[in-house]
């Protein structure tokens, strides 16, 4: 290690942005378009969906036929590098905590593969404590963020419909695609048991919105990322356009180590390791904008200790890492006998559901405090690894083309069975709001470092009765909908108190938020209402970390809106020379 030295970049940027996902991509986009000089650090390699997407590959193009690996937990064609585990980058748990931590390492982060579900938070979602006494209110309300939602709807594109719902606000929507056959079945049965079903709201371009991006061509593969930029990814829609301004220096394979500060306690830049040459670097800027992901941002702050910030940067409140929470999740699925032996046609549609169910009940009448929405799946999908796995549990149960057969089997008769059942499956998933709690947190593990020598995170997270009762309610609702559909439930119906009603481990839904929350009181929150550190005025967080609570909505659209709002604030403050 004799030749190890710290290389300092001479250029002083207006902003050093860490992370190129939704939050960091938006920050780079806004700052660069305002003429500011930006250095964007990304821990993974370059990725441009135009050239790097696995879109339109066939199942046999993958030797494992699309099965998952540790490199791509969502399958071999998926558009996200890494996931639940990364070689040489461990994390640990405290007690019986079972946090699952997804980490993307690539330009654009997780947005290359996300579900594109783009839901605005509603007015109630910012003021939950005032409603049910739990958690905290945000320091801002819907009216503060609405103009930014409006702007990103138009800038990035989202389809949906204006339904006039109180807590699922209207927006500027492109037309949604028509429901698929199983979605019409779902709509009929769900509506019959009192669950509303409305067009989904996904950031996919059913109409062209600008010359840089193409229109959706209905291959159902948004998860692989889109070669024509027909859906929203931070890589395609924010970072690559930002690079074109000439104002952004992108450094890929740059793993941030800590935020640097001066004697006055202000941020001066970021130190990072370049994963290609394994050398140490420092880059300086007038402001530092963190968007490394909810938990990585907390890790960076906690690892940035100095005389002025002995407890980690922006952490005089001792709150950094706390209030970590993910969406709740529980699922169920089955098969619809009425759809056996279906006529074949191309029903790929967009990459995801065409309809969904927003939260429809009043928690005052329920035994848990927050709601959930329901996502739906089913129909003809591209056959991939695991295609009709376990047919021996299915083909003895139903008459196939009029004939009762024994379970299992082989031969031409078995081939007939596979054809008969294709396209009859249906599934649903509840995604709900957990309560952000102080004792659900991540912290620095005192004795473990990753392969770069950076201290790692240790998690302490669990669920309470609130979330478990919500999962139970999800399962009851799913059973009602599937029963009304005359579907046979095949999975997700063996739950009970023994497994928290099928509630997924926290982190598993990959909507984690809350570790560096906003608030007006510097003693209770690291960030102010501009996502600006109370303790360090030129430091900002623009990923999921500033969230006070995360609603029963997927958080990306709100990350984007908040990041745009904060980035505009940074531009103003720099102009006024306040920072």
């Amino acid at each position: 290690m004799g030749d190890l030295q710290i290389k300092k970049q001479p250029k002083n940027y207006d902003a050093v942005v860490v992370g190129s996902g939704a939050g960091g991509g938006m920050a780079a986009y806004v700052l660069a378009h305002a003429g500011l000089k930006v250095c964007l650090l990304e821990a993974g390699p370059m990725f441009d969906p135009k050239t790097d997407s696995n879109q339109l590959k066939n199942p046999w193009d993958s030797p494992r036929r699309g099965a998952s690996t540790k490199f791509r937990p969502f399958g071999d064609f998926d558009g996200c590098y890494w996931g639940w585990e990364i070689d040489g980058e461990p994390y640990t748990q405290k007690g019986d905590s079972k946090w699952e931590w997804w980490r993307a390492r690539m330009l654009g982060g997780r947005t290359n593969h996300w579900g594109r579900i783009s839901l605005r938070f509603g007015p109630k979602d910012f003021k939950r404590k005032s409603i049910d006494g739990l958690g905290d209110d945000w320091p801002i309300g819907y009216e503060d963020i609405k103009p930014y939602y409006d702007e990103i709807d138009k800038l990035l594109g989202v389809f949906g419909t204006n339904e006039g719902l109180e807590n699922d606000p209207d927006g500027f929507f492109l037309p949604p695609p028509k429901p698929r056959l199983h979605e019409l079945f779902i709509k009929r049965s769900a509506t019959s048991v009192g669950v509303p079903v409305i067009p989904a709201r996904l950031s996919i371009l059913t109409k062209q919105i600008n010359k840089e991006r193409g229109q959706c061509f209905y291959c159902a593969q948004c998860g692989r990322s889109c070669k024509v930029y027909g859906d929203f990814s931070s890589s395609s829609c924010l970072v690559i356009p930002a690079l074109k301004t000439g104002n952004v220096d992108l450094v890929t394979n740059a793993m941030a180590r800590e935020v640097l500060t001066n004697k006055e306690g202000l941020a001066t830049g970021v130190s990072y390791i370049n994963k290609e040459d394994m050398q140490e670097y420092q880059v300086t800027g007038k402001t530092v904008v963190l968007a490394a992901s909810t938990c990585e941002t907390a890790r960076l702050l906690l690892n940035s200790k100095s005389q002025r910030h002995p407890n980690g940067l922006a952490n005089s409140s001792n709150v950094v890492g706390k209030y970590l929470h993910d969406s709740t999740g529980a699922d169920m699925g089955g098969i619809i006998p009425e759809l056996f032996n279906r006529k074949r046609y191309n029903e790929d549609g967009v990459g995801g559901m065409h309809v969904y169910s927003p939260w429809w009940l009043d928690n005052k009448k329920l035994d848990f405090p927050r709601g959930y929405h329901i996502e739906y799946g089913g129909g003809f999908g591209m056959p991939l690894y695991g295609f009709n796995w376990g047919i021996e549990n299915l083909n003895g149960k139903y008459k196939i083309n009029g004939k009762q057969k024994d379970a299992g089997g082989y031969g031409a008769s078995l081939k007939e069975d596979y054809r008969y059942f294709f396209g009859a499956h249906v599934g649903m998933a509840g995604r709900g709001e957990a309560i952000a709690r102080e004792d659900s947190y991540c912290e620095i593990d005192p004795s473990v470092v990753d392969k770069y020598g950076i201290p790692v995170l240790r998690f302490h997270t669990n669920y309470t009765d609130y979330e478990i009762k919500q999962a139970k309610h999800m399962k009851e609702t799913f059973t009602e909908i599937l029963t009304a559909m005359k579907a046979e439930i095949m999975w997700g119906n063996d739950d009970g108190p023994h497994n928290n009603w099928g509630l997924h481990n926290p982190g598993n839904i990959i909507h984690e938020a809350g570790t560096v929350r906003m608030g007006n009181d510097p003693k209770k929150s690291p960030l102010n209402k501009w996502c600006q550190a109370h303790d360090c005025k030129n430091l900002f967080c623009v990923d999921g970390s500033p969230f006070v609570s995360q609603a029963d909505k997927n958080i990306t659209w709100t990350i984007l809106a908040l990041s745009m709002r904060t980035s505009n604030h940074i531009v103003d403050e720099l102009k006024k020379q306040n920072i």
Partner: protein
Amino acid sequence: MDRRKSIKTLLVGGVSASVIVEACNPSDNKTATTEQKAAEAKPSDINRMAEEKEYEKKLMAEKFFTDAEMASITILGDIIIPKDDVSGSASDAKVPDFIEFIVKDMPEHQTPLRGGLRWLDLQCLTRFEKPFKDCSHEQQMQVVDDIAWPKKAKQEMVQGVAFFSLMRNLVATGFYTSPIGVKDVGYIGNAPNQWNGVPADVLKQYNLAYTEKELKECVSF
């Protein structure tokens, strides 16, 4: 819908025309050339990060099953998915090659398959004094019939049933994800198109209709 028309529509969309034309290698033209391509399935066919490339290079260099085991896998595969009047067999679809790869990629399948093949050979040795692959077709089918029907199988055959169920599932995965199998099961997709809703005759068959609201609000072509 006419594919050339759909591509043209996309071109009007303006972006990355060459990418799309190159990418939408249409599924019904995927015959000999794509099957050859499948046979040679190289990791480089799809996007890979550096760590994945290294891992797959290592897998490709390994050999797990012996030639004798591969012979048994091939016979079993073609019993499970034979040629019929719709499509070819498991071996036509190169399913044995897929199984050789997948056990290297998913080591949890190695012992159940290797042990299961040994169980099968021992059954055959006891009954017919030959390993499975050297038995006559009738003899092979006698043993297969003892393990292919989970609800009817005798208690002493349960290990064989578990093995055969795993083989059935792996062979089906390999077959229905091959060009022959995708066509057989009738998956029509993975190509640029315009989703205009459920076809009218299908809506009628299930007594369904789009609402006026849907017809008004949704994208139509």
